[in-house]
């Protein structure tokens, strides 16, 4: 089965537009331009003598138990998601309280969270080998 001239033209034009958007996204775009943004998975260059930051939420429930690494199982958000909006969370710790409410909504049978903190671990690299690691608390929300 052959295509009509119009069918070929429409397909070729659509492909050209798609390729142009993809090229522009790769050259100048950001993740914001999904699905034509740059394929930037692991595209950053980390200094072999620098620090690797790893941020996560840590919660304490009303029984005093610590939930060390909060993720999608607890609040339906991946670590990379709240990490990608870190400034938003650190500047407004009440967002952490909203996340505690989300946990209770998703897990009504489990003890409520009374404290949620943003914890950041910095792994210190020397010639690409992790040596020391330091952890600091960036923000904390406590249940009123």
């Amino acid at each position: 089965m052959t295509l009509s001239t119009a069918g070929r033209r429409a397909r070729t034009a659509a492909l050209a537009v798609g390729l142009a958007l993809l090229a522009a996204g790769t050259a100048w775009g950001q993740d914001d331009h999904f699905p034509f943004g740059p394929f930037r998975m692991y595209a950053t260059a980390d200094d072999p003598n620098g620090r690797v930051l790893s941020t996560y939420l840590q919660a304490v429930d009303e029984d005093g138990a610590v939930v060390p690494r909060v993720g999608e199982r607890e609040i339906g958000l991946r670590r990379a998601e709240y990490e990608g909006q870190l400034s938003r969370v650190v500047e407004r710790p009440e967002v952490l309280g909203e996340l505690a409410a989300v946990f209770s909504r998703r897990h009504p049978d489990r003890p409520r969270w009374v404290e949620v903190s943003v914890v950041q671990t910095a792994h210190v690299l020397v010639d690409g080998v992790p040596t020391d690691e330091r952890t600091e608390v960036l923000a904390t929300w406590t249940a009123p």
Partner: protein
Amino acid sequence: MSRWLFAPVALARIAWLRTLLYLFVPLDVLVTTPWVAAHDTAPASLYSPLLVGRLLEHPAPATWWVHLVQVLLLAVAVAAASGRAPRLLGVAVFGLYFEWMLIAMSYGKVDHDRFAFLVALAVLPTVGAAWHRDRTPSEAAGFAVRCVTLAVVATYVLSVAAKHRFGGGLPNWLESAVFVRAVLRRATPVGDLLLDVPWLLQVAQYGLVAMELAAPVLLVLTGRRLYLALTAYLLFHLGTYAAIAIVFLPHLVCFAAFLPLERLLGERQATSEDAAPGRAAAGSEQAGVPPGSR
């Protein structure tokens, strides 16, 4: 160029791709990326819409909306996998899956594992009726297959461009500790072993770029060489999964477009007695044409 773009492919390949890709949707939604559905309780304060979402004035997805899109997407994808009403159902799957992606990617993290899959969902409806035993060569099928294979290859090649752009030049990226960072942040048993041999991770960075730049050969190779090359790329993705528990499943499903799926079943006449009712028009250009009306 035009001849290459529209090189005819048997309609059966489109039929198989529809079955495979549309049935992958429920697997994706329910099993391999369940975190998208988990955005049903995400707080609006963390909603960070993409450009497309802002242009559409897409509000923060409400719980009921996420559930509605999920149910519709699952139902329509399964219906589309049957091969019936391929244009209508295909367009509906694309629209719903795209909305699913807006729900997925609008909370601060955008994934890059499904560009080819989105392209496949976009082009599958551009081919009309297609059945699994129909070996009729079709230019529309050829174009659709070419778009998917181009998208797979572009994902690799353009990610090298991104490394150059975001890594302060490709040489700088190659000499960086990006894989150490990847493994540190996503610890797995294999990854922990790799941390003790940083030079191996460094070599892997060179290997990755070589592999990504070589991806266009997938558009040229045929037969056994093509299968070997595809296997090599598959092994790379499995190795990545072992080290950092990330696998580009929707991308990998699109590898099927490279394969002669039309050979899976023997050819049979379109009017074969075991063609289901309503499928009697298989092989004709339009679905729903009653037998004998042409």
